[in-house]
């Protein structure tokens, strides 16, 4: 059987002979949705799309003043890949993002489960866990740096007071990276908990009632009802925390300044320092931005595809 091609012009019909909805809708109604999204798209285009594309463009040039640009082809990328500091920043970023995503996801599920129980002071605890989300990241960094300062910080004063060792929380490289992961998680987990709570509340209680009638334990209910039905929400939290992890900068900058000796310098700070600190190297910084963009974009797409596959299964 052959299907006749659709007639040209406005009078388009579907294969079963009905007139298409598109041609029957007046042009002004068809245009309206696009006009409604136009302001947002214009802002997106000017402040996100254009800088992103132009960033790729700048990465092909060498510039120390943003006025004179010398074409260098792929040299900026070659320099990045031969720079030990870039690999240090990439490694620190990978550790930070992985730990931050895992901790944020696990803790937000745990907290959401606790805070949806009928416990005493539930509203207070919800507010307490959400409070750090409202604080400025710069303030968070400063406060924690005062608490964790080796010689006169509040924590070490307390530890010293009870005869315990006083670690160099922000002076020892691996410890400092651990601290930034902890502070980042502390700062964001309240928000992710809120999302998880919304996900938990959307699960139909009748599943649990049926499971209880069949004698399912709490763990079995969590494993076979909560986790599978919470998967779309977890997917959102993983994506959001992953992006937040890759973009982490402000609180780390005030907490450790990227130190000690670059141990907590993540990709964003590496890019910032090459773009805005002497000697300025815009092309190199732009190449770093492109790599960061490709990494986040690639991981997000992978996550998205994995999530869709799981949903279809």
């Amino acid at each position, binding site marked *: 059987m052959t299907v006749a091609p659709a007639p040209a012009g406005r009078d388009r019909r579907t294969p079963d002979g009905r007139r298409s909805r598109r041609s029957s809708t007046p042009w002004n109604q068809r245009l309206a949705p696009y006009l409604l999204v136009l302001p947002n798209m214009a802002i997106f285009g000017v402040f996100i*799309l*254009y800088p992103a*594309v*132009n960033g*790729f*463009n*700048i990465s092909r*040039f060498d*510039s*120390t*003043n*943003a*006025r*004179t*640009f010398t074409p260098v082809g792929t040299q900026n990328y070659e320099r990045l890949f031969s720079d030990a500091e870039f690999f240090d920043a990439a490694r620190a970023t990978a550790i930070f993002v992985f730990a931050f995503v895992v901790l944020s996801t696990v803790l937000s599920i745990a907290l959401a489960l606790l805070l949806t129980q009928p416990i005493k002071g539930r509203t207070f605890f919800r507010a307490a866990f959400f409070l750090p989300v409202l604080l400025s990241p710069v303030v968070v960094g400063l406060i924690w*740096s*005062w608490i*964790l*300062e*080796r*010689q*006169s*910080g509040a924590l070490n004063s307390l530890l010293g007071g009870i005869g315990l060792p006083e670690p*160099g*929380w*922000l*002076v020892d490289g691996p410890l*400092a990276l651990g601290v930034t992961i902890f502070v980042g998680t502390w700062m964001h987990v309240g928000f992710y908990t809120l999302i998880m709570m919304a996900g938990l509340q959307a699960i139909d209680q009748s599943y649990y009632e049926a499971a209880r009638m069949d004698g399912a334990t709490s763990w079995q209910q969590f494993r076979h009802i909560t986790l599978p039905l919470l998967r779309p929400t977890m997917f959102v939290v993983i994506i959001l925390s992953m992006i937040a992890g890759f973009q982490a900068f402000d609180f780390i900058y005030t907490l*450790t*300044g*990227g*130190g*000690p*000796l670059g*141990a*907590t310098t993540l990709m964003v700070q590496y890019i910032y320092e090459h773009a*805005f*600190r*002497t*000697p*300025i190297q815009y092309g190199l910084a732009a190449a770093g931005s492109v790599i960061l963009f490709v990494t986040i974009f690639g991981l997000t797409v992978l996550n998205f595809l994995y999530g869709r596959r799981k949903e279809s299964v």
Partner: protein
Amino acid sequence: MRRAAAVGFALTAVLLAGCSPGSSDDGGGGGGAPNKLVFVTFTDGPDKATTEALVKQFERDNGVTVELQFLPFSELEQQLQGRLASNNVPDVIRTQNLQPFRDDLLDLKSAGQDVANQYLDEAQKAIKNKDGAAVALPSDLTMNGPMVNKDAFAKAGIPLPPVDKPWTWDELITNAKAAQKAVGSPFAIAYDKSGHRLSSMLNQYGTDFYGADGKVALDQGKATAALGKFVELTQQNAISKDFWIESGTKYKGANDIFISGDAPLYISGNWQVGQFDKAIKFNWAAIPNPCAARCGGYPGGKFMAAFKRSANPPLAAKLVAFMNSRAAQEKFAIEAQFLPTRKDLIAEGVKYAVRPADMAVFLADVKRTDPASYASNYNPGFSPTATELVKQLARSIAGQQSIGDTVNAVRTAAQKNLDAAGK
């Protein structure tokens, strides 16, 4: 529709990627109206009122308007680069580093201000462009040097050195440690985390990043001796190790360590005098720089310049000359403890109203300072090399690399920065 959107996106991307980034340098910029100037500067604090008063006087004398913009010192270069790129160029600037803007600056002589030869001979090379034209004036000279908590040294029973008999480096360290012990402070010495301030020590040990011929001159043995001594002090925690490896310290600057009484001796420079006069509650004083192979301090300073793209170049050049006239520099010196750069003021001397004895110590060190240090400090590769020195030295302090490797890395950076500046 999705295909059309994809095609549109791809076309946009291709068009954008095909363009050379940046904007044209032609035209535009300047303060706008010919009778209005934009003057971008920064302040260390005490000089702010003096700058404002002088600008007001210039406005009155010339019937013009000057928009005075104070930017944070740390953001100055980045902001000026951005403004140059977006054709929002100020008319006049005061900056520490002329190198990134040298090709954009106005030839002061061609704009009617042939005054450059009235300033320090040592700064003449630094204020000229590639064609040998003076494009800036040295607006003040700075001199690195130590300051002490007199109460702490008195408690330790240590007399301070007279202006003409500086301590050696070893004496300075021994005495600072004794004062630290006497008052129980956490550290003996607070030292600015700055490659420029470390250059004092390098110079006192007999070496510099660059020589008078403009070539890299860092001597391996001398630099290793100086930096080795410094690292040893951090290992003993006589100088805060945490502060130098850039993390886990409450101090934002070494001046915090000194002001809070956490170190009895502070190595910085004369620009602190005006601030300390108001901020410090204990008795303090400037003492002469310590000697090793050489005595004396290390020079630095700021420059004032006008941009070629000013809407009124003669007026912009006039403001630069006015702000660095004899009367203006004298006012800055008296009110903000600046050291003058004008030959006439240097020859006649300045009568400082605030803490004249301390300023006399810095002036005495100016005379003892090795002339070659000016050549190194004003070399176009100096600023990024000084930054690299701090970074590399922090690795030695943390035990990640030897002092020798640090010196090698700094030498390599000095050459690379020199080559980059010459491009």
